[in-house]
C-alpha cells in the first residue's frame, strides 16, 4: 500500500454559520444572482456579426414578418457571463458526488467530448450520399457490434433517442411480432417497482397495463406472474437488476414461463451498469432491452438530455425492428437500410421511429467509452459499481432502515426507507440536508414500493474517500432527522435557493416570461 497519505483528509466540522450582512446586490461573494435575458437584453443588441444580405427581390410571398418577435440579444461578453453565472447555480458530477439511484451518474470522460466534436462526425449531414459518410456508418456499426456482444443478443436497433423511446421500440417490436403471427394480445404486465416510463410506454402503444406483485424480499413473485400469464398477455416488462437494487434471480424462469405462454420479455436496461461484462441478458431469455448510453456508457446527462436508447433484440424480434440501420458488406463498405431497401431485405420492420439515423453524437461518445474500457475494463466497471453500492448499504444499514438488506447483496444501488425518523421528518428532509452538505441527493420516493424510498447509486467512478465522507455526512443528517432538528426541516440553508414553492408553480403556472404590467407612476 502506498504510504503517501494513510490518514486521508478529514474535513473540519463546519460551524453553524452566520448569515452576515445583507448586500446591495443580493449577491454573496461567489454566489451571484442573475437576471433573465429578457431583463438584461434588448432587441437592438446582438452578439453576432453578419455579412450584409444581398439586395434581392424577396420570394416570401406576402408572408414577411413585420410584428416584433420579442427576442432579446446580448453581446458575446454578456452572453458568456450570463450563462457562466447560471452554470454556477447547478450541481453536477464534475463538482461532486451525485448518487441518484437508477440514473447512473458516473464521470463523463472528456475524451468522449473530443472525439464527438471531430469534424468528420459533428459536421456531417444525415442525408449525404452514403459513399461520403463511411466513417460515420462505421462508428454506428462498431458500436452495434459491441452492444450485441456485451448483451449476447441477436440484433440491435440503434435509432431510439432515449430510454423511454427505446422501450417504445421494444414494445412495438413485440406488438409487430404478435400481429405477424395473427395473435394480437392486449395486456402488458409491469411490476409495481418499475420506472414510470414502462407503464406509460405500454399504454402509449395501446396496451392495457397490469401490475405484477412482488415478494416480501423485493423481487417479482414468480408464482403470481405464472398465474396471470395467458393468451391475452403480450409480454412483461422487467427491470433487471430491479429498482430495489436486486438481481431478479428467477429471470430465466420468468422468461421461460412468458415464452411458454406465447408472450415476449422486455427488459428495462436502465440498470445494466451493474452487470455489464459479467452477465449477458441474452443468456436470461430476454427478447428486447434498451441500453441507456447516457447511463451505462457515460454520455453526459446534459441537464436532462440528450440521451440515446439503442435496443438489443432477440432472434425472434430482430426481423421486426425499426429502420434505418447500417449494414456492413464483405468488401468493408457500409450501407444504410432505409425505406426503399427495407421492403426487400427487411419486410417485417415496424417502420421508422425518428427522422434520420439516431443519436450519432452519443454513439461516438459511447464507443469511445467502451473502447477505453474494453472487455476487461467493463467487467471491472460492474464489479466496482456493485462493490461501492454494497459498501454504502453495509455502512448505513445500522442507522437507516434497509428493507431488503436481508434479501442478499445489492447490485449497483442501495435502497433505504424513511422508517424510524422523528415525527414529521421524512426522506425529503434528508435530501435537503444532503444539499447543505455539498451532495446531490439520492433518488427519493422511488421505487414506489418502499415508504419514503431513498435509492443510492454511487457508480464505479467514485473513490473510497468520497464514499467515506458521504457515509459520514449521511449518518450525520440521519441522526439529525431522528433527533428532530428543526434546522434540517428548513434545509437547505446554503444553496442558491431555499425550498421552492412547487404548489404555487403548479396552481398558477408561469411558463414564459412576460413584460411586467407597467407600474402606475405618480411622477
Amino acid at each position, binding site marked *: 500500500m502506498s504510504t503517501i497519505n494513510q490518514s486521508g483528509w478529514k474535513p473540519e466540522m463546519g460551524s453553524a454559520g452566520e448569515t452576515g450582512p445583507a448586500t446591495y446586490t443580493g449577491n454573496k461573494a461567489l454566489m451571484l444572482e442573475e437576471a433573465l435575458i429578457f431583463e438584461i437584453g434588448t432587441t437592438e443588441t446582438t452578439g453576432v456579426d453578419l455579412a450584409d444580405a444581398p439586395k434581392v427581390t424577396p420570394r416570401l410571398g406576402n408572408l414577411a414578418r413585420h410584428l416584433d418577435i420579442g427576442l*432579446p440579444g446580448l453581446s458575446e461578453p454578456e452572453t458568456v457571463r450570463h450563462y457562466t453565472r447560471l452554470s454556477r447555480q447547478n450541481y453536477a458530477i464534475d463538482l461532486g458526488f451525485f448518487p441518484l439511484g437508477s440514473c447512473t451518474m458516473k464521470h463523463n470522460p472528456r475524451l468522449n467530448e473530443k472525439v464527438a466534436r471531430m469534424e468528420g462526425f459533428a459536421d456531417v449531414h444525415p442525408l449525404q450520399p452514403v459513399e461520403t459518410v463511411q466513417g460515420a456508418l462505421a462508428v454506428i456499426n462498431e458500436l452495434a457490434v459491441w452492444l450485441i456482444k456485451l448483451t449476447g443478443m441477436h440484433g440491435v436497433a440503434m435509432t431510439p433517442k432515449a430510454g423511454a423511446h427505446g422501450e417504445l421500440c421494444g414494445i412495438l417490436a413485440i406488438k409487430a411480432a404478435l400481429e405477424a403471427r395473427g395473435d394480437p394480445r392486449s395486456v402488458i404486465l409491469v411490476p409495481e417497482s418499475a420506472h414510470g416510463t414502462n407503464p406509460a410506454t405500454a399504454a402509449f402503444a395501446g396496451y392495457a397495463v397490469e401490475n405484477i406483485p412482488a415478494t416480501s424480499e423485493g423481487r417479482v413473485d414468480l408464482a403470481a406472474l405464472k398465474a396471470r400469464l395467458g393468451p391475452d398477455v403480450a409480454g412483461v416488462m422487467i427491470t433487471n437488476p430491479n429498482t430495489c437494487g436486486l438481481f431478479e434471480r428467477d429471470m*430465466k424462469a420468468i422468461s421461460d414461463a412468458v415464452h411458454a405462454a406465447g408472450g415476449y420479455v422486455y427488459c428495462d436496461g436502465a440498470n445494466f451498469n451493474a452487470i455489464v461484462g459479467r452477465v*449477458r441478458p441474452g443468456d436470461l431469455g430476454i427478447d428486447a432491452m434498451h441500453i441507456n448510453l447516457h447511463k451505462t456508457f457515460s454520455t453526459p446527462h446534459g441537464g436532462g438530455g440528450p440521451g440515446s436508447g439503442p435496443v438489443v433484440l432477440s432472434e425472434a424480434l430482430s426481423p421486426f425492428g425499426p429502420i434505418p440501420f447500417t449494414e456492413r458488406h464483405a468488401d468493408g463498405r457500409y450501407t444504410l437500410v432505409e425505406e426503399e431497401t427495407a421492403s426487400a431485405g427487411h419486410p417485417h420492420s415496424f417502420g421508422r421511429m425518428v427522422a434520420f439515423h439516431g443519436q450519432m453524437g452519443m454513439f461516438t461518445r459511447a464507443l469511445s467509452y467502451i473502447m477505453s474500457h474494453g472487455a476487461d475494463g467493463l467487467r471491472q466497471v460492474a464489479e466496482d459499481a456493485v462493490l461501492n453500492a454494497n459498501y454504502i448499504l453495509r455502512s448505513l444499514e445500522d442507522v437507516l432502515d434497509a428493507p431488503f438488506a436481508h434479501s442478499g447483496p445489492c447490485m449497483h444501488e442501495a435502497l433505504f426507507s424513511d422508517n424510524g425518523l422523528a415525527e414529521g421528518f421524512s426522506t425529503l428532509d434528508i435530501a435537503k440536508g444532503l444539499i447543505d452538505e455539498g451532495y446531490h441527493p439520492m433518488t427519493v420516493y422511488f421505487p414506489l414500493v418502499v415508504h419514503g424510498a431513498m435509492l443510492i447509486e454511487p457508480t464505479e467512478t467514485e473513490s473510497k474517500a468520497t464514499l467515506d465522507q458521504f457515509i459520514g455526512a449521511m449518518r450525520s443528517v440521519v441522526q439529525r432527522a431522528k433527533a428532530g432538528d428543526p434546522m434540517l426541516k428548513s434545509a437547505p440553508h446554503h444553496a442558491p435557493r431555499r425550498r421552492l414553492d412547487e404548489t404555487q408553480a403548479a396552481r398558477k403556472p408561469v411558463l414564459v416570461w412576460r413584460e411586467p404590467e407597467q407600474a402606475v407612476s405618480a411622477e
Partner: protein
Amino acid sequence: MRYLPLTPSDRQAMLGVIGAKSIDDLFADVPAEAQLDGPIHGLPNHASEMAVERHFSNLARQNMTASHTPFFLGAGAYKHHVPASVDHIIQRGEFLTAYTPYQPEIAQGTLQMLFEFQTQVARLFGCDVANASMYDGSTACWEAIGMAGRITKRTKAVLSSGLHPHYVSVAKTMAQYTGDTLDTALPELSPATDSTRLLNAIDGETSCVVVQYPDILGRIEDLSAIAAKAHEHGALLIAVVTEPVALGVIKAPGDMGADIVVGEGQSLGVGLQFGGPYVGLFACKEKFVRQMPGRLCGETVDAEGKRGFVLTLSTREQHIRREKATSNICTNSGLCALAFSIHLTLLGEKGLRGLAELNHGLAVQAADRLSQIAGVELVNDTFFNEFTLKLTKEARPVVRALADRKVLGGVSLGRLYPDVDALANGLVVAVTEVATMEDVETFAAALQEVLA
C-alpha cells in the same frame, strides 16, 4: 483503467467492511449458468486515450465534411455557423454533467435556462407557451398529433403532402398502434402546395391538420385559411417548422392561427451531427397546456420569497401518472436546448432577422444562378433558404456524381421518396449563410457538367 479510482487495497478493505470474501460473493444472486467467467471473448481489452483518439480520427477522415466542401443539403437539417461561445458554454461541467433538475435548489442554472428557452420558443413560434424540449422535430410532430387527439377526442389527422417524409413515416409507424388514421399524399413538383386538398379533407371527424412551414420542397404559404377551416370544424392546426431561422423573416405560425407549433431546433446552436442529437421544439396555446407532453419549467418563489424556477405540472408526466401520462418521454434534449437558447440569445431579434435576410438573399441568388443551367428548372415561386430544382435527369445519381466532384449538392427527392417516379428528378437545395457565391459557382459548374 483511468476512469476507475478504486485501488486493489481499497477493494480488499471494502470487501472486509461488507463481510464478503470476494467480489463473486456480491454476484451470488446471479445464477451460475448466467455468469461469465471472464471478459467476453472476441472483444478487445482496454485502450489508451491516444489509441482511442487515433481510431476515431481515422474514421472521421473517411467522411466528407460540410465545412470543407461546397455544401447545399437541408431537408430537415441545416448547416449554420455556430458561434464559438455556444460550444464553450455547453461544455461547462455544471451544464454538461448535471442531471434533470429534480432538486431545484441546486439546479437553478438549468431551470432558468429552460424558462428562457421556453419563452424564446414561444415567441419565435407566435405561441403562448412552449415546453422544455422533445427528442427532435419528428417525434415532436407525432406527439402533437397525439395531443390533438386527446383535445378533440377524434382520431383522423390530415397531413400535408409537404410534411417531411421521415416525419410522415414516424407518424405512420405510431398510427399503426394507436388506431389513429392519417390522411396523407405525396407532394407534386409544382409551385402550389396541396392546401386545396387539405381544405377539402377537413370535416367533423378531423382532429388536426398538419402543415410544414416552409414545406419539404421549400415552399411557404399563408396558413390562415387552413386554420380558419380547421377551427370551424373543431379541429386543430399543427404547424411544423424544420428551419426555425426562417421565422426571422416570415410570419410565425401561431400568428396565423396555428394551435400547436412544433419544430426541429437543430439549426440554432446544435450543428449537423449526422442526424442527432437534435432538439424538438413544442409550443401551443395556453389553454392546451395541461395536454402537453414533456417537461415544463415554471416560475415560483422560495421560502424567503426569492424568485426561482421548478419543473411543474408534472402530474401530466410518466413518473407521476404512469400509464395515464400524456407521453412516455422522460429524458429530453436539455443540452441541445441550451445550445439553441445561447445561439438565439447571441443573435437576438436583430441578429435573427439579419441572419434570415442573409440566408434568403443568398438562396435567391443561388436559385437564379442554378436555374440558368440548361436542364434545370426552379419549382418554387416562394421559398426561404431552400428550394427545389427539377432536373432533366434522375437526381439521385446526380447527387452522387456531384459528390465525386467534391460538391455536396442538395438532397435528391429519390432519397426521400424512393420508388416515386414523379419525384425522381427533384433536387432540394438549401443555401445558408455558410455558402459563398464561389461555392454556388462551383456547384453550378459541377451540375452543368453532370447534366450535360
